[in-house]
């Protein structure tokens, strides 16, 4: 895709601030001599398809988008790579939360009850927690009912609204448990969505990783190397860089790793999200 030495990145516009973020990065890269431009998509499936089709050099991928990109690319004989990720993307967990004063005290108690999740394509608030419950002996839709909160479908849970709605549904008694990322349980407590002490964490998933910069098979090596090197050089003590890192929610970029997507890949298999070749099976 790169033309005239410009690296083209795709990202999903899950919030208006996305424009501010990538305009800032574009200016900063330009100051460092890297030609960089970005294209925004309304959903991750379109982003991934553009990456694999060679219309983009790099995609700022959700973990689910990474899983699909990897499958699509492999089935076409190519290979995508994860080159960088945020420090805050490493070793996340999700939690299943219940009301402190409710009847559910152990995972088995969820049998026959309603579990609130986020958007249907949210790794952290739907796919991974449901897989975790399955590993503990409870199958979604069989042993308990799943109540989705479809805010920002196509954006893979980047929009926190689905998780927040699940939390509210828990407090309102519309569901008996709610799934969310660990940090959002703390956030919802601080912001008052969940009064401190009103909920209890029933179970916590093993750690998993979140977003990464995924490089397409046809991306020009030197530009990708320069891009990655510049990202890893960004320092939080640089007042020019710090606002960008704050907006994007990290303190430092880390080299990309793909060892943290196993739990999600398993969830994709169990819940029939994509086929082996990355074809859409269940999700819109």
């Amino acid at each position, binding site marked *: 895709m790169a033309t005239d030495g410009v690296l083209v990145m795709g990202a999903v516009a899950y919030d208006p601030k996305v424009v501010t973020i990538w305009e800032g990065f574009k200016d900063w890269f330009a100051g460092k001599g890297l030609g960089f431009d970005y294209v925004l998509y309304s959903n991750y499936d379109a982003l991934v398809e553009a990456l694999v089709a060679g219309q983009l050099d790099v995609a700022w991928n959700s973990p689910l988008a990474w899983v699909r990109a990897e499958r699509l690319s492999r089935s076409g004989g190519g290979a995508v790579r994860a080159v960088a990720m945020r420090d805050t993307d490493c070793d996340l967990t999700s939690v299943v939360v219940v009301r402190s004063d409710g009847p559910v005290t152990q995972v088995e108690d969820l049998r026959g009850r309603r579990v609130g999740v986020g958007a249907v394509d949210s790794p952290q608030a739907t796919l991974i927690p449901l897989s975790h419950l399955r590993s503990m002996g409870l199958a979604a839709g069989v042993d308990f009912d799943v109540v989705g909160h479809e805010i920002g479908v196509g954006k893979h849970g980047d929009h926190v609204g689905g998780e927040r709605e699940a939390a509210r549904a828990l407090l309102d008694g519309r569901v008996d448990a709610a799934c969310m*990322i660990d*940090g959002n*349980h703390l956030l919802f407590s601080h912001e008052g969505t969940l009064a*401190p002490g009103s909920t209890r964490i029933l179970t916590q998933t093993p750690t998993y990783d979140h977003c990464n910069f995924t490089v397409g098979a046809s991306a020009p090596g030197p530009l990708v190397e320069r891009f990655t090197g510049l990202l890893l050089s960004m*320092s939080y003590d640089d007042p020019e860089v710090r606002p960008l890192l704050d907006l994007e929610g990290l303190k430092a970029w880390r080299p990309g790793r793909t060892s943290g997507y196993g739990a999600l890949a398993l969830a994709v298999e169990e819940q029939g999200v994509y086929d082996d070749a990355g074809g859409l099976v269940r999700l819109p």
Partner: protein
Amino acid sequence: MTTPGRGGAAPAPAVLDLEDLGLDRGGHLLVERALAGLAPGERLAVSGRAPELAVHLRAWCRNQGHTLVDHPAPGSISGDEPGPPPAAAVTNGDRVEAWIVRGTAADDRWRGAQRTGAADPVRPGAVAETAASTWGVAARGALVEAGSPAFPFPLDHRSMVWTDDAPRYYRQAAAAQWDPATAVPWETPVDLPAEVEAAVIQVMTYLVENEQAALAVPARFLGRVHPHFREVVQVLAVQIADEARHVEVFTRRATLKGAELGRSSAGGQASLLTLLEEPDFALAHFLLSVLGEGTFLALLSFIERHAPDPVTAAVARLALADEARHVAFGMAHLGAVVTSDPGQRARLAAAIHRRHDALASTVGLNADVVDALVVLAAGSFTPRAVAEGFTRVQALEAEMADGRRRRLTRLGFSPGEAGALSALHTRNFM
């Protein structure tokens, strides 16, 4: 939190017991406080009984750039080296125990931050020669993060705005505020002859337009003075509030009997426009406060002395006290200006000449006002009373000129220069 002694080979880690306080109830404050005493890379052992502590510590550390590391074994939180077990936080009975390795983000954020002088203006170095645009609206003396946005405060040099007397004038101004509703005896009966009431109304109409100019001039500069020079901003802010009250009480006196307001002449407004058009802060302050408001001291004093009713006397007296403070502050500011750079006197003189030239083709005076002052001072329309009033107004004009000469002399002008410059002052008084 306890920090064991640093003697010996391996320093023992700091230990924090949160008891039953969770991070969802402010526990992060204790963790931050404990981490603040450590260097990046050093470890803090945290224990507590809050049920969600382990989950929240993990999320909080990730967000803050700290690392939650593996814990050695349940029950050994008191200072052992971290070891290989997989859980970053473990439960020992009902107690959660975790290790935090302090990250660098908090230090990184404040690297290159600047201490912006000191809050107390008397402390050495408290007030900078130049206030950086990136100090913005931060309190003087605050530590300002590098990368803060630049604010457009063009009056950012100490020599442009500062006087060491500003804190004192602000204190005086704040202490001298009065309530227009209660400070004036509005309920006192006022029943003047129609001509005298009309003269009072004309004088009040004139005062209102002058006070509105005196409000607009500092208001134009208020937002341009760098907030580092806090006391100057505060004095100007109170000065603006003073003028707002003056506008109120003069208007209320003018309409006390329900009559229409008086006349506003083109020449008088042209004179006031030249005040608003002066773009330089020091020059505008000079023309307004030293010359204009200085001249008004004599005028307000005159109105108070010869007021035909107690309400008129009261509004003039209250405004006079405020204006005296404005003049004193103006003198202090301009005194500092000419002391630091005597060459500034030539600019002050040039400003008077410019304003005089600009007004040369206008009447520069509302004749109705002078006539009204005569009637006000006369108190009636008998020939003897009018003659007396006329004499008093002539004396007033001489007193005004004398005041201007004295102030100009105090700013270092020779008596000859002061006299000549005083004579060029607008015939509109302000």
